[in-house]
């Protein structure tokens, strides 16, 4: 299983799990630094769950500062 058990997502589908892992990865590296190994789990999870178009769109939004999600813990 490539995602962690998150009680908020037990009833959620791919969209929510994809998004949650994307946000959690960036929260993780913002809090612990890019080299913190356990963050990789989130990275693998969102790359397996999310459509590439979404990842590209969210990455572009993050670079422009227009991503509405909160990446700070």
């Amino acid at each position, binding site marked *: 299983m490539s995602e962690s058990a998150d009680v908020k997502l037990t009833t959620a589908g791919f969209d929510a799990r994809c998004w949650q892992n994307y946000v959690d990865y960036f929260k993780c590296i913002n809090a612990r630094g890019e080299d913190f190994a356990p963050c990789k789990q989130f990275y693998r999870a969102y790359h397996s769950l999310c459509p590439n178009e979404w990842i590209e769109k969210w990455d572009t939004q993050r670079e422009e500062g227009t991503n509405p*999600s909160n990446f700070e813990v």
Partner: protein
Amino acid sequence: MTTKFMNRSVQAHPFHLVEASPWPIAVSFSLLVVTLSGVMTFQGYSNGLFLLTLGFISLVSTMTLWFKDISREGTFQGHHTFAVQKGLSLGFVLFVISEIFFFISIFWAFFHSSLAPTVELGAHWPPAGIETLNPWEVPLLNTVILLSSGATVTYAHHSLIQGNRAGVIYGLIATVALAAVFTGFQAFEYYNAPFTFSDGVYGSTFYMATGFHGIHVIVGTIFLTVGLFRVLSYHLTDHHHLGFEQAILYWHFVDVVCSLGPGALRAPGSKEWARFAGPSLDLLLASPKAAFIAIQEVREPWFPRLNRFNSIGRKVFED
């Protein structure tokens, strides 16, 4: 004993067979113009706004003339027997129920978007970038104003039933004054709001709800003002004042939406909602037991005497 003369000018039933009137078709046509020109305006077609203004003036005029006729038929021509009154009351109550359902649909749309905000909004409510209004400022004041107007209109109604003419007039003037103040504050809020109708689903749901509510407040105010003029003109009696009672029912409906509205609409996502609603909906769905424990913790400082029921809950969720 028989009589050779038959009185053919008296109807042998209590109902009102209305005379031919141009007002229903005139109102229908005005509504058609208003709706079509409304769409023209929203879609940016030329002359849309001009036609909308014409249609609106036409609508208000034809409706006024229709209701004027109804008022004449009842007050001066004696057509509103008890049977007719029952029909008019039932019809109006059904209309108010349909309006309630209209607002249910607006509230549904709001809760659909606000309780499970999408990732495009940042999965939280209010959406990222929206600066919300403080529900405890103007909204709370407006709620109090409308609830007070409900009290003054009840005073006016009781005065009418008791035959206290001065009471009715002052009560109605107070009600209409409070309604006008409410409308003024709401206009102030609209003018100074940091977000518009186009600001995503937040703006849409907020202005749909408050906008339609505002229109109903204005219509209700007009209805009550007409009642005031009729009272001044001695149209109403202490036993027969259907139009007045209908105006009051409509006003209470407007009132209730405005008491529930601000509370429900401006709360989700705010700290107040979090405090009073306790655990979020998703925790409730994912783990009822965890939700129950969280509810206990939230409830304890606010309603300590309910803690005696904790043991029942523990038995229900026993592992």
